């Protein structure tokens, strides 16, 4: 019998996998340094939680979470269409702060800092995913579908155009491709899957508040994408598993209580550094981050 602790970790891996492979689509395959991903995750989580708390069925609130995040992704792509690199990163970072501020201050809708408690677990065809084993199965079905769709996108002609846009946008435009449209679709698709991940997170934890969607929450996802290697889904999967599980063995090292927190974080950081020393492009990276 697998312990509930391990099942919990597998569920977290599943949620992070959806977040990371979707971020890989915009960052790794399209070259958009998108720091707004956590905002799409937040939009999905809140949309899903509010609809679930108002009695909507799972398939509606789950898809609504994805589509609402997708709309935000598309809207974000309009004002940022001419931005690249650091400037795009700053603009999308600003978007994250806006969404966080809305979640924190629109108390009539989100209850602000008090958060949304009592979010129900999903029910599908009369079956409620109330225990963590069934929720794990649901999560991995969604992970598999998400992976297959994103994989299909990346190997399709459309995916090749995304990669061409990443490598040389001007040349791609000279070849007659509408790179703005390509980037918009990429960002919106990436946001759609982040919204789905947010919906899964809200349904799993059953409580959300704005503290779960700060910039600090984006850092591990971005680390996964970089350590896995840009434009590599295989690397992203491996990095997700390693980065989510890595803090767990460190918990079993007996540090003195006065340094237990910082010491574990230092070791965690050093291990990540070591990986990047030996694999500067990440595990299976095809391109370098500019």
């Amino acid at each position, binding site marked *: 019998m697998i*312990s509930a*602790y391990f099942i919990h970790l597998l569920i977290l891996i599943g949620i992070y996998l959806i977040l990371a492979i979707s971020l890989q689509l915009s960052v790794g395959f399209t070259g958009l340094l998108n720091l707004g991903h956590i905002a799409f995750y937040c939009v999905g989580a809140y949309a899903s939680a509010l609809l679930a708390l108002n009695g909507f069925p799972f398939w509606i609130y789950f898809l609504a979470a994805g589509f609402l995040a997708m709309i935000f992704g598309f809207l974000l792509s309009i004002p940022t269409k001419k931005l690249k690199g650091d400037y795009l990163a700053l603009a999308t970072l600003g978007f994250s702060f806006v969404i966080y501020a809305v979640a924190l201050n629109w108390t009539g809708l989100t209850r602000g*800092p008090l958060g949304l408690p009592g979010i129900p677990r999903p029910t599908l065809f009369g079956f409620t995913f109330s225990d963590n084993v069934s929720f794990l199965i649901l999560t991995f079905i969604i992970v598999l579908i998400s992976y297959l769709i994103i994989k299909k996108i990346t190997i399709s002609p459309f995916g090749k155009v995304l990669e061409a846009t990443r490598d040389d946008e001007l040349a791609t435009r000279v070849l007659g491709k509408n790179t703005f449209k390509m980037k918009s679709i990429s960002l919106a698709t990436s946001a759609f899957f982040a919204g789905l991940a947010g919906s899964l997170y809200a349904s799993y934890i059953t*409580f959300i508040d704005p503290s*779960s969607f700060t910039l600090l929450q984006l850092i591990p996802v971005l680390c996964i994408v970089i350590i896995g290697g840009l434009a590599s889904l295989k690397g992203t999967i491996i990095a997700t598993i390693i980065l989510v599980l890595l803090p767990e063995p460190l*918990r079993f090292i007996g540090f003195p209580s006065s340094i237990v*927190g910082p010491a574990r974080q230092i*070791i965690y950081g050093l291990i990540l550094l070591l990986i990047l*020393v030996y694999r500067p492009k990440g595990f299976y990276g095809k391109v370098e981050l500019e």
Partner: protein
Amino acid sequence: MSKILQTILWVVIIVVVVGLIWYGLTRKPAEEEVIKIGAVLSLTGIAQNHGQNNREGIDLAVKEINESGGVNGKEIKVIYEDDATDSKNTVTIVHKFIDIDNVDVIIGPTWDFLANAAIPVIDKGKKVTITPSVLGDTIEVTSPYFFSTFSPVAFKQKTVEKFLGEFRNQKIGIMIINSPWAVAHLETYKKAILATNNLLVKEIILSEFDNNEMSTELAILKDLNLDAILVCLNDYDSVNFLKKVKELDIQAKILGNEHFGDILKNGLLDMDTADGVYFTDLSLPSEDFITKFKEVYKKEPGLYSDTAYDTVYLIAKVIEEYGRDSESIRQGLKKIKYNGVSGEISFSENNYSSNKEFELILIKNGQFVPYEE
């Protein structure tokens, strides 16, 4: 990257692996002979000051209990886990305590939103969890297994009324951060203003948990010529607020929360800057506790150190009197009255400490002076 650095990094990895093996080899025999407490605290991140204060109180109590023979002849062992003030980590750690470590009882989490995320897991795992630093009425998710040894914010109302008692029909302003704990303060402050026939003319909610830039907000409050300002802020905001009040020469009387006392005790701000300011806090811990604490840590006990210390003694007493399984501990906590260093602890229907009153304290000439009418 030099070979030396690479070697150092590999050494770190080897230490991790050896540590794991060591743990695996040594933990089993010890487990049967100890009372295991899991402490899920914010030892890093934005709540680290309070998490570290909790830890110091816990360590001191455990040392004393173990030196005096333990609980029913068994030593207490605390497994510390740092959630880095991230609710996702809090949930993971609670799972670990329940499923892997099989602890007898859990202490923590440090802050309210962390508790809200973890309580469903605590409830499902039926593991008694006692927080020394989350104020009972800031919890949005309830469980019969979740207890708080700190008093609820609502208990401050009488103390705030005492502060406002000398005013009538005067202009009062409120400034708080945007957190469940501060929102509970806002409600309590509003009730006290209404009860003392004063007028709330401005209410400001800052956007962040801490480290807010508040110059504009304070300029607005100054322009209103308020008679008093009631605030609820975290540590660094409290420092910032008190410095700016002095810089801007704001003449209104100031009432802060327990963090005012904590930043002064921790030396984050000098007493002169805060002279003439009031704050609410639980009664000061007993002299005996302060002396013992100073001997070990060479400093004043911080906020929530005393309640954390009491929480360990409370657990020890309940296990001694009622038994070690979770249900016995829960039943015992509902019945017990424990006179600790932070005051008398007994639990209300909602599982928060129901016998502790807040005091109104004035900072005067470098001293904390309990206010007397």
